[in-house]
């Protein structure tokens, strides 16, 4: 269970939002909405613990996330704006490193299957620098297929630069994760065919 209490976010010298409170239960899919620059990405980074809150707390299972960082990170998957790809590595090497860096031992064979499933069967051995934007995006998203044991997924604009088929496949994966008791928190500007319509959190309501 994820709880946010009285959260305030300061970016540079501007207060983006304050007094933000939220409670997420297992199985919930939450869409963080609001106009550009209102602090959607900042909210996601606060939830992951990458950014430091100006005020307020984020709790995971009742414990502040900075109390037992490693335990929280074991249950967290965050995919940010930057795809975390190195241009000189192939998609397969990138994916394997991403999993190992997060602390998961994943078999090469399974990584390959994930990349094939997301539609990169022909690019497995190419360096990432020759991939298109959509393909780069997919390398990062392939981790979703390997991270079902991580309860909380925090995704920043996962649907950008993807085609229609990929969007619906991804929406299905997210719905499945929630159905299995996981939680998904995401920002998006486009409509995606989720099995259950997501709960919406409007950050604009807390803006200063």
């Amino acid at each position: 269970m994820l709880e946010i209490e009285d959260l305030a976010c300061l970016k540079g010298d501007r207060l983006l939002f304050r007094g933000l409170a939220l409670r997420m239960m297992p199985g919930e899919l939450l869409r963080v909405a609001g106009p550009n620059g209102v602090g959607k990405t900042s909210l996601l980074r606060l939830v992951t613990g990458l950014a430091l809150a100006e005020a307020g707390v984020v709790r995971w299972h009742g414990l502040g996330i900075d109390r037992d960082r490693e335990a929280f990170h074991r249950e967290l998957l965050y995919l940010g704006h930057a795809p975390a790809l190195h241009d000189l590595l192939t998609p397969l090497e990138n994916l394997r490193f991403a999993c190992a860096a997060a602390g998961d031992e994943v078999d090469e064979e399974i990584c390959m299957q994930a990349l094939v499933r997301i539609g990169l069967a022909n690019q497995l051995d190419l360096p990432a620098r020759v991939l298109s934007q959509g393909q780069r995006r997919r390398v990062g998203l392939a981790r979703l297929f390997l991270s079902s044991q991580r309860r909380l997924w925090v995704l920043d604009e996962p649907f950008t630069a993807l085609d229609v088929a990929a969007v619906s496949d991804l929406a299905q994966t997210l719905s499945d994760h929630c159905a299995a008791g996981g939680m998904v928190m995401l920002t998006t500007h486009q409509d995606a065919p989720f099995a259950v319509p997501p709960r919406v959190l409007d950050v604009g309501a807390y803006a200063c």
Partner: protein
Amino acid sequence: MADGLNLEKNHMNVKPRGPSLFRFAAPQMFYPLAGRLAPWFAAAALVLTAIGMWLSFFVAPTDATQGEVYRVIFIHVPAAWMSMFIYLVMAFWAAVGLVMNTRLSFVMSQALAPTGAMFCFVALWTGALWGKPTWGAYWVWDARLTSQLLLLFLYFGFIALTRAIEDPRRADRAGAIIALVGAVNVPIIYFSVKWWNTLHQGASVSLTKAPSMAATMLAGMLVMAFAAWAYTLAVTLWRVRPMILERERHTEWVGEVLDRERGRG
């Protein structure tokens, strides 16, 4: 944006009630306190400097071996003491800030840095002035002078880093880290330089070890040291005030303070 958000850290639990000293850790309590204290320290610095100067130039006897030149130590030694002491205080506030998450501590350490660097420079400058007639050169690679020079570089590094970072929060924390790293290294630097110095040249005439120091000399030096303390406190408190206002400008109390001061002016 202007309406109130209680910006002091909630886990610090600083509530402006009760006689606890901790309440001054809250910026809105410290701001007026600093304003009230600073003139007193400034006055103390002036008086002490006057007494110290009188003692060191008119009362203290002429040194038997060094003549009148030695009188530079009345500025040099307090400045050198202060420059080292201020770095330690800076590192102390940095550690407090990182551990307790109080932004006032970071502000303190940043307000202290320019004064520390100034004293460091004064110590080097007066050291050079003393060195020319005594050693025959403005600069010798003496262990004390060299460590003082490296300390000046550490101050410059701290100031440059905190100024280069736009985001005040990142600047605070990054500065705190480098201040702590520097504080751990200061003794290492000092002893390594000393070791290097003894290997490369014979023991040089020490600036502070005057063989028999007259009581009035010691008194002059101590009074000057206290003057340097008072000066540091006054200047730091004055420097802290606008820094607090800048950081807390989206809070209610800063709005009130600014309104009041505008009304008065």
